[in-house]
């Protein structure tokens, strides 16, 4: 009865069979986009690209949370780190992302108090342990992370911690799909994110799917999950019958996780948000509600977002929207590498440039 399925989903015989099936049924050249940074990494790590026929191209979409964070948001985080008596708490990836003139890492070297945390509750604990400091958590991530940030705000509220706040740059996935589908690039199918879907459920994609009738499959993270999902997309394309399908039913349900959604909606309201490479997408971000204004770092610190150009020569924006792949960026490997990243796509472990660099082995 033990759930050793994790291993079962690694069964090479299943993977071989699925790859053979995809090769057999795939006729039309297609471009599928995975909209989840963890999928990007899983696809590279498992080597399934090499199992796929030439007809299938996989593009990485705007699924890496740090990568889609707009330059002006990065700059606001850096401005925050310069505030006196302030501890900035963040997940690790963000620290090395270059802002317009600095990075959190550089600020830290110059004396700013920037701490890496594993969970948002660690940031709340920092606020409790440092009552004479202001502790700000940098809220970056999609619907998977936003409920955990909302939970931290509720906990701080309950504990009456008035020195805790969050700078929310959270984004939500379905509006980004709309923006991509309306854009210039032709995408033949979407591999929808696994853990975002755990929270928001299949139903959250219904209106997007009905409006665009493009093949959509929610995928898990094991090699056989991914191959199965790709096989389902190919089936939909070849039969001319697009559908919204769930290839990860052990974790994703039609309604998602209502409790997590309720916590998220209690604290956050949907608002417009800026995405790197895409620009402003209506109703695609999460801002802290008036009720919790005391925990909103934008209000507490009076920091405003100031328009800022993306790093010169960096093609992250085009990569995040599927218009380019990393080797088409002139800086890729010549100037930009994981030790000296020019853009966030090379910083984050989930970034497409970092994944290419690490796994692709191309020229």
């Amino acid at each position: 009865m033990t759930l050793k399925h994790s291993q079962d989903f690694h069964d090479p015989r299943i993977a071989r069979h699925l790859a053979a099936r995809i090769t057999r049924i795939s006729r039309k050249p297609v471009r599928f986009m995975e909209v989840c940074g963890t999928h990007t990494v899983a696809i590279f790590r498992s080597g399934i690209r090499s199992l796929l026929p030439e007809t299938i191209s996989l593009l990485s979409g705007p699924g890496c949370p740090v990568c889609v964070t707009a330059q002006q948001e990065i700059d606001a985080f850096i401005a925050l780190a310069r505030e006196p008596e302030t501890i900035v708490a963040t997940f690790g990836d963000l620290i090395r992302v270059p802002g317009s003139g600095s990075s959190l890492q550089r600020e830290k070297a110059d004396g700013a108090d920037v701490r890496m945390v594993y969970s948002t509750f660690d940031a709340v604990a920092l606020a409790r342990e440092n009552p004479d400091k202001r502790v700000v958590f940098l809220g970056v991530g999609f619907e998977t992370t936003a409920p955990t940030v909302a939970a931290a705000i509720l906990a701080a509220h309950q504990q009456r911690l008035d020195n805790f706040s969050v700078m929310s740059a959270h984004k939500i996935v379905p509006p980004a799909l709309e923006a991509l589908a309306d854009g210039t690039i032709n995408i033949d199918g979407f591999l929808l994110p696994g853990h975002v879907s755990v929270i928001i459920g299949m139903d959250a994609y219904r209106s997007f799917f009905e409006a665009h009738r493009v093949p959509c499959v929610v995928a898990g993270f094991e090699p056989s999950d991914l191959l199965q999902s790709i096989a389902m997309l190919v089936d939909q394309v070849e039969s001319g019958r697009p559908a919204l399908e769930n290839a990860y039913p052990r974790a994703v349900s039609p309604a998602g996780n209502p409790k997590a959604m309720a916590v998220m909606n209690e604290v956050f309201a949907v608002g417009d948000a800026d995405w790197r490479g895409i620009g402003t997408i209506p109703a695609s971000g999460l801002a802290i509600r008036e009720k919790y204004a005391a925990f909103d770092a934008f209000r507490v610190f009076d920091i405003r977002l100031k328009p800022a150009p993306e790093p010169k020569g960096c093609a992250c924006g085009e990569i995040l929207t599927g218009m380019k792949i990393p080797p088409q960026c002139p800086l890729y490997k010549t100037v930009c590498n994981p030790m000296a990243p020019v853009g966030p796509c090379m910083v984050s472990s989930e970034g497409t440039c970092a994944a290419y660099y690490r796994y692709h082995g191309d020229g």
Partner: protein
Amino acid sequence: MCLAIPSKIIHIENEMATIDVDGVKRSASLMLLEDSAVGDYVIVHAGFAIKKLDEDSAKETIRLLREAAAFVDDLEAGKG
């Protein structure tokens, strides 16, 4: 940032669970989960359990995949 490996709940106290991730013990908040019990397998994201895995569904997916791969026979023979 997402951890794809399922974690097993081995202890619960005050909405905090001790979880076992492939032999490593960690703690995870249960604040975002509807219901959970010791022994459940959950998906954990940044210190929070976000979903109980549906074991029947996991088994069904594996069964279908195996069946499709046409080695369901030796599987049956192996597991009895």
